[in-house]
């Protein structure tokens, strides 16, 4: 079958040459799959994807020099038409979530059957998402937990006045009392009072914790209108 005639072009990235060769032999035995590139580390994988523009990239999560998750983020950013499958030594819920958040379309463990890898490659190329069924429940639980945390964060944020949101935005950007006072054209004492109110309403105990609250909940953008 000629390329461009339904052949899925695959890039394979794994530190272990033996593993790459074994997978390459298996994938290449399929009429509709063609391994067009290989990489032994994350940086090489990104460069190769940019060079050969494969349809699907298979990345080991534990790649040296830029792990598979970070490489996924870069690949989906730079070559968005390339679909990524991340695989890891064992089924790992945290890696699964990180991979999906980085833009991967699928996740497999190295314990999977080779036929699963073949089918996974075809599935993500079709546009399907691929999650090991056994991990689905845990993943949904994690999503629900995260949503609850976000809702709780928004509830606390809702207690803040507009001025306090401005103060929080400055705190999250590392400003001290004087910096906040200067930026908002208020006295340092007033800035301190606002900060105490923010800490109290967010139920956190330090500026650092307040800054972490903003970062962890990804709400810096929600502080729209706050000063830069």
């Amino acid at each position: 079958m000629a390329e461009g005639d339904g052949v899925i072009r695959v890039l394979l990235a794994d530190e272990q040459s033996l593993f790459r060769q074994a997978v390459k032999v298996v994938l290449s035995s399929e009429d509709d799959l063609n391994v067009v590139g290989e990489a032994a580390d994350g940086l090489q994988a990104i460069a190769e994807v940019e060079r050969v523009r494969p349809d699907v990239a298979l990345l080991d999560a534990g790649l040296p020099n830029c792990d598979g998750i970070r490489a996924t983020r870069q690949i989906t950013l730079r070559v968005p038409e390339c679909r990524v499958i991340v695989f890891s030594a064992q089924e790992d819920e945290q890696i699964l979530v990180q991979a999906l958040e980085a833009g991967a379309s699928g996740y497999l463990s190295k314990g999977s059957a080779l036929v699963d890898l073949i089918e996974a490659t075809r599935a993500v190329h079709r546009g399907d998402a691929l999650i090991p069924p056994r991990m689905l429940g845990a993943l949904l639980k994690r999503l629900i937990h995260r949503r609850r945390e976000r809702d709780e964060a928004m509830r606390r944020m809702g207690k803040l006045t507009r001025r306090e949101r401005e103060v929080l935005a400055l705190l999250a950007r590392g400003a001290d009392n004087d910096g906040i006072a200067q930026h908002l054209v208020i006295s340092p004492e007033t800035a301190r009072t606002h900060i105490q109110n923010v800490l109290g309403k967010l139920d956190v105990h330090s500026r650092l914790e307040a800054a972490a609250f903003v970062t962890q909940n990804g709400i810096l953008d929600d502080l729209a209108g706050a000063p830069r």
Partner: protein
Amino acid sequence: MNMLVRKGNPIRKPEVWLRQADNENVVYDPETSVVHILNATATAIWVLCDGETTPDEMVEAICELSGLPREVVVEDLRRILLQFEEADILTWKV
């Protein structure tokens, strides 16, 4: 939403256990000695039936993960929870 015309959150009967193997998910009820084979979606929902997770939360998470329309997910969830209920392996925690 009250899509299930039930009050509270679905919860697995504590004596019922789940065994997940490579290609099958089995729920076993020692009280009745009945074995139920679940598909991947039903298994995921079974895991979520902890008495703390609301049906609404289940719907939102499944929609987020699958990209399916809300009405499709609501209908699937309703059907699966009713099957659990009919099999007497699920109750509702108010």
